[in-house]
């Protein structure tokens, strides 16, 4: 999947993945896509919950070798 911006939040623990994801989303225009990579297990539930609260769409999510990648489309 193509994204407009990539964010590497690997190795960061809660709350930093969300703090950085929010800052990155703030720089995008509506409809653009952010790709974010995290390793913190808590993010697995928190990023979708945060996206839902803000109206952003999770287009895809995959996990490989402990790295979770989200594709988030800005509302």
């Amino acid at each position, binding site marked *: 999947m193509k994204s407009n911006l990539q964010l590497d939040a690997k190795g960061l*623990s*809660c*709350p*930093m993945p*969300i*703090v950085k994801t*929010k800052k990155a989303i703030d720089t995008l225009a509506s409809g653009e896509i952010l790709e974010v990579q995290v390793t913190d*297990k*808590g993010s697995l*539930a*928190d990023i979708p*919950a*945060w996206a839902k*609260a803000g109206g952003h769409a999770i287009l895809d999510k995959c996990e490989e070798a402990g790295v979770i990648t989200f594709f988030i489309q800005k509302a």
Partner: protein
Amino acid sequence: MAEKVINNEELFILDVRNADAFEDWKIDGRKFEYLNIPYFELLDGVEDILPKIPTDKDVLVVCAKEGSSMMVAEMLSEAGRTVAYLAGGMKTWSEYLEPIKVGDLTGGGELYQFVRLGKGCLSYMVISGGEAAIIDAVRFTDAFTSFADDKNVKIKYVYDTHLHADHISGGRHIAAATGATYYLPPKDAEEVVFDYAPLIDGTTVQIGASQIDVGAIYSPGHTIGSTSFVVDNKYLLTGDILFIDSIGRPDLAGLAEDWVGDLRETLYKRYRELSDELIVLPAHFMIIDELNGDGTVAKRLGQLFAENHGLNIKDGVNFRSIVTDHLPPQPNAYQEIRQVNMGKLTPAQDEQTEMEIGPNRCAVR
């Protein structure tokens, strides 16, 4: 924190985990007030929630591991509020053990209950004449070995009443570290990959010079091997078969239909043959209301026969339906936890913590 729960103190908890996590599992206290706002909704500031946070009682910010609660607590203190955060978060809360004395035994012995307040697990240590037996130890083995050191007793016997599915047992690790004998019911242990002593009906050991009996009673139903203990003819340790306000569920090893008859037999026949005066000590509690005033979880068997709904379902068909059709969700990662307790999986500490997240859910009400 444990004191606030046990002493029924007042506390305002701002839980900043996401709504699902909060709904699933929180710090229970009789006089606690709660506000759940996920931390990611507070990134732009805490001004909006200030009116909802009291200034006349203690405020504790709670999250999963600490980081987010620290952030929110800092934001609140910048806004002029005095708040605390829970060090280590729900992870540490889940691991905390409070040893509480249940009572004295014949000849100077003592019985202690280790209350894992955050998860609802209960472990036991019987002490007498310089020796100790431990029943249903959780995985924080230091809590037990250092307690035994403080009491100057040698751990001789370690038991699990059954193969646990909701939490990782510390039993065989304590036995390995202390030279104690580790007992497990053989019917639950068909797949285990380590050596153990068989715990069967009538297994009796004496602890210390004062000869306190710890006697096993085969009481299947939660698992096919589930075994209870009578300690000093005074206490009945029921494992996950009978709780204070509920009964064990028969499905966690995948055989609810097969085991429901055993559960009925244990609760309605075998336990009925015991003295009403025995004090029931279960391996779990589900809700904070099951705690006595001193923090222990214990009640007379006769009182449970009168009050526990699960012991008062006259009709066998109805009983079968209640314990097989209306079961709550299963505990987090219960299948993996069983594999760990069989010795087939050896996860790292932080993986063990993840597996044990959430409430124990071993009961059916």
